[in-house]
């Protein structure tokens, strides 16, 4: 079973990191979202630095969702899902491994790049570090919640938009605690520990529960 899980992780990683896989596109999308914000709110560095954590978090949320709609759809379209359902690995574990690979290939780079992009918003060192930390703590929850939406829309031809509509409301708590943790150093509303621990709790709960929801959805929705 360990070999099957590792094999699946490796396969997902390879597909995501090769040309057209979409892992790098998410990072570029993230960069573009962060770049257009100063054009919208104006070149006021003090203002940008203050709302920087919020900009980075909203951009990371959208960039995470961007690639998630294909999480199961590719496998559904080419018949791989049929084989995976009857493979040795339980479907819940298959979902978890696919999400882990997707997180490692798509979401983790966003957290690593966020301090660099935050510099463009004139943010200080401490808030930059907190944004990266809060993104590492919070993006697993986004990926797992997104997996439920991806599973529900797996058989729909243009399911990406519907998936975003389904998933974004569920991501609001993650966004609230993420921004609150990230802006703790730059005059935020709460001290750091409380929102960061809530963020970790949300991620852990999502990792524990979402695979069951997504696997149940995959079993139901597939014809």
């Amino acid at each position, binding site marked *: 079973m360990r070999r099957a899980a590792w*094999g*699946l992780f490796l396969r997902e990683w390879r*597909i995501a990191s090769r040309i057209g896989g979409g892992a790098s596109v998410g990072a570029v999308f993230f960069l573009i979202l962060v770049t257009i914000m100063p054009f919208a709110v104006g070149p006021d560095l003090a203002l940008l630095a203050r709302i920087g954590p919020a900009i980075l978090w909203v951009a990371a949320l959208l960039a995470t969702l961007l690639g998630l709609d294909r999480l199961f759809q590719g496998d559904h379209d*080419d018949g791989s899902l049929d084989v995976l359902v009857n493979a040795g690995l339980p479907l819940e574990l298959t979902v978890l491994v696919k999400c882990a690979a997707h997180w490692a290939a798509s979401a983790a780079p966003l957290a690593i790049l966020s301090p660099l992009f935050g510099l463009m918003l004139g943010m200080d060192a401490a808030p930059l570090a907190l944004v990266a930390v809060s993104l590492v703590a919070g993006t697993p929850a986004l990926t797992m919640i997104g997996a439920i939406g991806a599973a529900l829309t797996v058989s729909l031809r243009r399911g990406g938009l519907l998936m975003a509509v389904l998933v974004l409301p569920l991501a609001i708590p993650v966004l609230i605690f993420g921004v609150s943790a990230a802006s703790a150093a730059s005059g935020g509303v709460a001290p750091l520990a409380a929102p960061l621990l809530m963020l970790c709790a949300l991620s852990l709960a999502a990792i524990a529960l979402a695979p069951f929801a997504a696997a149940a959805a995959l079993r139901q929705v597939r014809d």
Partner: protein
Amino acid sequence: MRLSAHEIAIERGGRRILSGVSFEARAGQALLLAGPNGSGKSSLLRAVAGFLPLAAGTFALAGGAAEAGIGEQAHYLGHADALKSALTAGENLAFWADALGGDSTRAAWIAALDRLGLAHVADFPARALSAGQKRRVALARLLVAPRPIWLLDEPTTALDATAQRQFAIVMRGHLAGGGLILAATHAPLDLDGAARLTLGEAAATGVAA
């Protein structure tokens, strides 16, 4: 090992497309599903694999692994080839060997490809293969992980005459080793002693005795 179906009925989209289908297939035997388009051949195979709920009836497997369901002891080969175009043919096969509990060493999947006359494309990305070559890589999946039941939906689509002969040899080898084949097909599969079950008739019944 004996796979039997009793009074199977399947509904899709609110319409009953199969009803009263019974059959029995023993180890070493092939059962070919025939019938016009839309007669429910593919749906019956998907139901055996466990992908479709049954409106009525039961499948029973005697003599298999006790804990695993029919689907987990079966290879399902559908219309789609289940290949990732970004990976090479060999990477695809190595992954399926891992996932299905087979031997994922290079020697094992090269041997599987070789039996279908395709060892020379092992390191090409799947997107660069022709339709027939992709189909043969998909067929090689049956060989990298041993499973007793093969559920084949039009397995010889896009295969040339040579490849069809090679696959017939592979299928005969599987049957000789105590395997069991359920295949939906319009083309002759060149299997001696294969039973036929024609769907699309009232209360289709086929017994491979």
